[in-house]
């Protein structure tokens, strides 16, 4: 058969990597003391399916490796072995190792035969140590053996009629039994029918077997394992009623256990689904050669799209019919049709955008492991809390925010949280806390990394900046400005350059990356109490709702998400501040006014008197200001086009778009404008 298995390889790799991710998080949950059999089962399933897949697709080294892991996990799962820190640590290493194996295979590299050897060795060491239950078992066994030494078991074996048809032969079982000890059998042939009605493929006999052996009941049951469901089997120790009862009870208990487990199954499945969903957008291959990244999309989203396209086709054909032989009497129908078309197009667009949205968990999921490893290395005690991990944002943003976030978390762990002794000395709990949070705010996504560590040391930063020549000794800077200094290129305060952080390339790159995504980062820090790094990112990169405004003859677009309200001011609301700044009072707040025609040097045709135009109150970076414009025109969804592709970044603009008539309109960079306005305002004051 000409099935080319290679076409499934990619699927196997992706599933394996996703599985490993979820295994990793389960392991970490277990380490935190979440002793949940569900977690163990999930981990077992992951390893089991990787092993299966690897075997099928011919990755023998992965299969062999995972087999050993599976053996260990199976013992843990069945409760034979208690899970220890040692095992968890080893399993975490296993995850790395398997991941490396999978990634090597994925990029077409040859397997490194030594990879994972030491892990296998350690796994085998653990496996060779007798398991806890085995130990108990053997104790029990010893006493049992002492009691029943030389006595043995009485077995009643009644095969069901169809047992032979499944290919099981009693003779072989008896042979196996005879290997355990001396056996004597008696057979009951009362059921045997007359020869003419005898079906040669059916079994009519009942056996009673006595075995004289010190063997365990399990060994006997093992022999009958394959026919368990096809016979009535009773095993009694010879001459010991009590023991029999006990085994019956145990059997009943076992059944109970099975039932309980079964009952858990639906939940099991649901959980599995959850896991899948969580890891749906799991690690994409990033550095391996060739291949495109893929995205898993829920079928419900696809169905929705298909539905919508269907609607669109219907609307289109409706309009087509209308177009043939159109006269003015059908104008209303045409308008209805166009409205419909507009609605469908918008829905279609929204659903397609939703496909690109992925939960931020894609990035967050790597941190528990990282913090765990780092804190161990540094000897710190750190509790990582994650919230808002289901917050969705554009896939491109999620992919590119990973590195800056990693850097920030690393910083919090390395520089932020103090050593346990230091913490208790300053009256804090030994366990430091790093909190990752993501949430929506307006048209942005906010990601916060906060810690309750030492906070930024203003004095140290200042000195460092002076010695690095970034500021001069006489500069008087506010605390906020000093905090900002850490974003300066080539700034690092770590006294010792560690391999974790503090190589001097750092926060400036972080900020650059975030700004490139159209986002922003700010710091709030209090010495001794901790710091908060707050990143705000745009929801999506491609499309936004825009308010068209006009100034003179020019039109600009303000992202609706940044507009708080639009008002017409009365003269008594406005105050001129010394210099050129103007402020207006809005519900007790004094906000600077930005005259668009001044800001953009519009030459003519603009409205100069504040009362005649409109003040659009906008917010960016948590600060507000009023944009003074002539008119508010329509609102429209706009496709963002980069100015930088063929040009450069222009102050006050975040991009451009193309209107329906083909003309270009520019989109205002509200955060930038607000920043400039407030700075100017502050200078003026």
């Amino acid at each position, binding site marked *: 058969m000409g099935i080319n298995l290679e076409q499934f390889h990619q699927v196997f790799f992706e599933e394996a990597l996703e599985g490993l991710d979820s295994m990793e998080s389960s392991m970490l949950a277990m380490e935190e003391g979440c002793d949940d059999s569900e977690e163990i089962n999930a981990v077992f399933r992951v390893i089991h399916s990787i092993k299966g897949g690897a075997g099928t697709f011919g990755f023998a080294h992965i299969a062999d490796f995972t087999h050993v892991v599976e053996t260990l996990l199976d013992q843990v799962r069945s409760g034979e072995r208690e899970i220890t820190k040692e095992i968890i640590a080893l399993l975490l290493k296993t995850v790395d190792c398997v991941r490396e194996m999978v990634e090597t295979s994925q990029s077409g590299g040859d397997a490194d035969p030594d990879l994972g050897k030491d892990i296998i060795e350690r796994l085998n060491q653990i496996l060779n140590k007798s398991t806890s239950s085995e130990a108990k078992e053997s104790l029990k066994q010893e006493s049992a053996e002492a009691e029943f030494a030389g006595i043995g078991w009485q077995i009643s074996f009644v095969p069901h009629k169809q047992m032979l048809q499944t290919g099981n032969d009693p003779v072989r079982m008896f042979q196996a039994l005879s290997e355990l000890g001396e056996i004597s059998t008696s057979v009951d042939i009362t059921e045997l029918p007359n020869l003419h009605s005898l079906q040669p493929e059916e079994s009519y006999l009942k056996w009673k077997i006595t075995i004289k052996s010190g063997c365990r009941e399990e060994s006997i049951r093992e022999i009958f394992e394959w026919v368990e469901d096809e016979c009535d089997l009773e095993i009694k120790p010879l001459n010991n009623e009590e023991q029999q009862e006990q085994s019956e009870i145990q059997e009943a208990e076992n059944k109970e256990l099975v039932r309980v487990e079964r009952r858990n199954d639906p939940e099991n499945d649901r959980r599995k689904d959850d896991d899948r969903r969580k890891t749906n957008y799991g690690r994409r291959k990033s550095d391996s050669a060739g291949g495109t990244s893929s995205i898993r999309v829920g079928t419900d989203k696809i169905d929705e799209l298909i539905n919508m396209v269907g609607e669109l086709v219907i609307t289109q054909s409706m309009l087509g019919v209308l177009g043939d032989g159109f006269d003015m009497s059908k104008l209303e129908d045409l308008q209805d049709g166009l409205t419909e078309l507009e609605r469908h197009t918008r829905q279609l667009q929204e659903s397609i955008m939703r496909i690109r949205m992925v939960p931020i968990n894609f990035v967050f999921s790597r941190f528990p492991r990282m913090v765990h490893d780092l804190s161990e290395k540094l000897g710190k005690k750190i509790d990582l809390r994650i919230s808002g991990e289901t917050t969705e944002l554009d896939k491109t943003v999620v992919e590119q925010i990973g590195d800056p976030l990693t850097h920030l978390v690393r910083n919090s762990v390395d520089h932020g949280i103090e050593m346990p002794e230091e913490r208790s000395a300053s009256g804090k709990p030994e366990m430091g806390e790093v909190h990752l949070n993501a949430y929506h705010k307006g048209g942005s996504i906010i990601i916060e990394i906060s810690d309750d560590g030492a906070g930024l040391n203003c004095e140290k930063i200042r000195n460092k900046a002076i010695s690095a020549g970034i500021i001069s000794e006489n500069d008087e800077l506010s605390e906020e400005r000093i905090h900002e200094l850490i974003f300066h290129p080539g700034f690092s305060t770590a006294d010792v350059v560690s391999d974790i952080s503090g190589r001097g390339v750092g926060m400036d790159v972080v900020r650059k990356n975030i700004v490139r995504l159209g986002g922003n980062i700010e710091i709030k820090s209090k010495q001794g109490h901790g710091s908060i790094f707050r990143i705000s990112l745009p929801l999506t990169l491609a499309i936004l709702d825009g308010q068209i405004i006009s100034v003179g003859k020019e039109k600009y677009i303000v992202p609706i998400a940044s507009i708080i309200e639009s008002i017409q001011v009365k003269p008594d609301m406005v105050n001129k501040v010394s210099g050129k700044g103007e402020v207006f009072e809005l519900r007790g707040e004094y906000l600077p006014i930005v005259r668009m025609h001044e800001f953009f040097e519009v030459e003519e045709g603009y409205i100069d008197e504040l009362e005649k135009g409109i003040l659009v109150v906008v917010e960016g970076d948590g600060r507000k200001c009023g944009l003074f414009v002539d008119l508010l025109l329509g609102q429209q969804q706009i496709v963002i*086009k980069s100015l930088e592709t063929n*040009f450069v970044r222009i102050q006050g603009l975040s991009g*451009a778009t*193309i209107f329906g008539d083909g*003309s*270009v309109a520019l989109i205002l960079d509200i955060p930038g404008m607000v920043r400039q306005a407030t700075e100017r305002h502050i200078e003026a004051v």
Partner: protein
Amino acid sequence: MTEVAEEQLNEELGDVTIDEDQYLSFELDEEYYCVDILRVQEILGYTDITRVPNTPRFLSGVLNLRGAIVPVVDLRSRFSLDEVEYDKTTVIVVLAVKTMHSEKTVGIVVDAVSDVLNVSKNDIRTVPETGAKVETEFLTGLVSNGSHMVMIMDIDNLLNPEKFMELL
């Protein structure tokens, strides 16, 4: 390809030799300039251009070239020549400009395009220090085309957006 075959091919191609390039020449305030024709992407009639604030005056603005936003430089304004009404010969020549890291598409407004010149490398002369309305740093050479001189414009130098934004 064997040497013999190569010779044959050269013979067949006749007078089109490898060191001859084609240039598109255009008019600007009664002087002639040209650019490497391989850099010309298209020639558009003058259309509406959106002014971009906070840019130098000579940047007319940006236009929509099939969905791409393309900056347009008015060469008259760039070299502080007299402003004239745009008329029906005024065109925008869209050029590919190489910058440090990438290639950008930039348009220039010129009075009129005139013709395509075949120029052999040997015919290109160095630019004298003075004489043209365009500063010599933006010219790479000059060629004579019968009655008049045509100056070859260094568009990578002249039209690099990062560079001309410094003139703001």
